[in-house]
């Protein structure tokens, strides 16, 4: 059997980790099952992703497709066509615009990702606390996360001073945080919707000598951040998970599904969890690049 895997290219840390896990899983499964063949493509945009999927169908005769859609709407019809051709479809993370196309759905929960951070702020910050937000690359994912975050803050009396795009990028986040620090004499907390940005923000705070004035909450569970939590860093009290390893789960389950070894189908939604000093050890993976 041939399984096609189509995921976004490693254009930021989380996607990089996704690539890492996908590659390792494929290597492992190929070594274990000589019958299984994988086609991995990484893509930089929805249009190219559609092309990649077309190629897999036209030239590689795939039996199953594991896809993390770059965007929902544009990929829906093309994936529908693949599914109509009798190919097993597993959708990862980003749901399609139409229900019932995929055989298997494995996903994180972006709303929960933002909501978990928001809830933490609502519960742990004082009324009137001031927060700045670093958003990701303008996209659906980012919108969902921010919506969840804002919903959780509703009525908490916490003031969001500013929201700008840090593009899931350390360097951009560094500059953005420097400017926030110049602009606002008082900041109580930073929500960086991704750990890469949190790293940049932390460096800027440290440079300005304002460590201790504010906390930074990132997301996705990057190794360095988890380590800081584990070590009781007061600036980084918690983090929110969004495990890139979900791709491994998806690929493994798909392999099981197409080989008929076990009946798998349905939805697996992995809600975001709060990493705290107490459970940090469980989320720390020494060998992961992320």
């Amino acid at each position, binding site marked *: 059997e041939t399984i096609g895997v189509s995921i976004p290219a490693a254009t930021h840390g989380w996607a990089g980790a996704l690539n890492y896990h996908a590659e390792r899983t494929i290597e492992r499964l190929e070594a274990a099952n000589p019958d299984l063949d994988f086609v991995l493509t990484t893509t930089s945009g929805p249009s190219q992703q559609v092309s990649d999927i077309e190629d897999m169908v036209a030239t590689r005769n795939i039996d199953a497709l594991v896809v993390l859609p770059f965007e929902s709407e544009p990929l829906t019809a093309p994936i529908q066509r693949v599914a109509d051709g009798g190919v097993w479809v597993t959708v990862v993370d980003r749901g399609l615009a139409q229900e019932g196309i995929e055989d298997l759905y494995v996903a994180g929960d972006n709303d929960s990702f933002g909501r978990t951070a928001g809830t933490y702020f609502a519960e742990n910050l004082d009324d009137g606390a001031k927060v700045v937000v670093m958003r990701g690359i303008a996209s659906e994912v*980012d919108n969902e996360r921010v919506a969840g975050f804002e919903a959780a803050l509703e009525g908490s009396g916490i003031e969001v001073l500013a929201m700008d795009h840090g593009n899931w990028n350390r360097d951009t986040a560094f500059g953005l945080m420097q400017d926030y620090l110049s602009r606002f004499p008082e900041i109580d907390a930073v929500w960086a919707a991704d750990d890469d940005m949190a790293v940049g923000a932390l460096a800027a705070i440290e440079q300005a000598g304002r460590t201790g004035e504010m906390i930074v909450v990132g997301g996705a569970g990057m190794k360095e951040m988890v380590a800081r939590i584990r070590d009781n860093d007061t600036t980084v009290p918690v983090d929110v998970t969004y495990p890139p390893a979900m791709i491994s789960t998806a690929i493994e389950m798909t392999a099981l599904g197409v080989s008929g070894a076990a009946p798998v189908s349905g939805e697996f939604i992995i809600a975001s969890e709060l990493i705290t000093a107490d459970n940090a050890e469980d989320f720390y993976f020494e060998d992961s690049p992320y």
Partner: protein
Amino acid sequence: MSAESISNTGAARARKVDLRVIGPLVALVVLILIGVMLNPNFLSYSNVTNVLARSAFIGIIAIGMTFVITAGGLDLSVGSMAAFVAGLMIMAMNWLSVSMGDSVVVILLGIVLALGAGLAAGFINGILITRAGIEAFILTLGTMGIYRSLITWLADGGTLSLGSGLSSLYSPVYYGGILGLSWPIIVFALLAILGEIVMRHTAFGRHCAAIGSNEKVARYSSVHVQRVKLATYVLLGLSVGIAVVMYVPRLGSASATTGLLWELEAIAAVIIGGTLLKGGFGRVWGTVVGVLILSLISNLLNLTDFVSPYLNGAIQGVVIILAVVLQRNSGPAR
């Protein structure tokens, strides 16, 4: 130094021209041969159709770009412009369908709007470059940022999608066709032929080359330099509009990532095809070959398992360079 290169030019030219003419073709043939060797399905009907149809967007834009570059200009904004026009078109169609239902008329109006918007965007670039005298690179870098921002803003950071009724009504424009050829392929082919004729056999094409070669000489030869330059940008805008008309039915949506880096791909295709970046000489068929080369590379990479998908970009880079080496001038001088 010169002694060598100059003395060579005369003798070398005959030979050189040949190589420069067939260079891109050779690269294309080599890629096709590699494809055939790598995968028996490479020349299958469905793969060939897929590759050709998806080349159409960049291809159509690159045809317009050939004229701009031949006349000594450049346009970095086409990718963002395509995204913006697609966004406008989708919003307008969705809005119209509220009152008019999911009808063909709505789609036709959308098409007219896309073509008009492309034209207008090209006109704005052109007029600012020719009348206000702003360096094309910088101006279009600016408008690139502007259109990209506008589409992000229109889509509120997310995706603008065509209503599903309209979407299924419109999708045959990408997926349908006649005689086994899908519409994008037909449109691309027709525009390529038309472009080649215009470039080679009309006064407009000649004037583009003359302007790119030496603007002052063109002006002294009573060529309407500013008008022709403006026209190249308008034409490019129009071709962006046409590309959008073929693109929207494919995915039914537009977002901040639509058309990302299309400008670089289009420019690369034009240059791989043998058009001079500094202007003065352009050929549309070369551009078509260039577009096909670029599409084939990524298709080939999907045909096989390479060491690591991370290295795709590297292989692409190497092939682009090799394709140009094949048709480079014989010496370093130029």
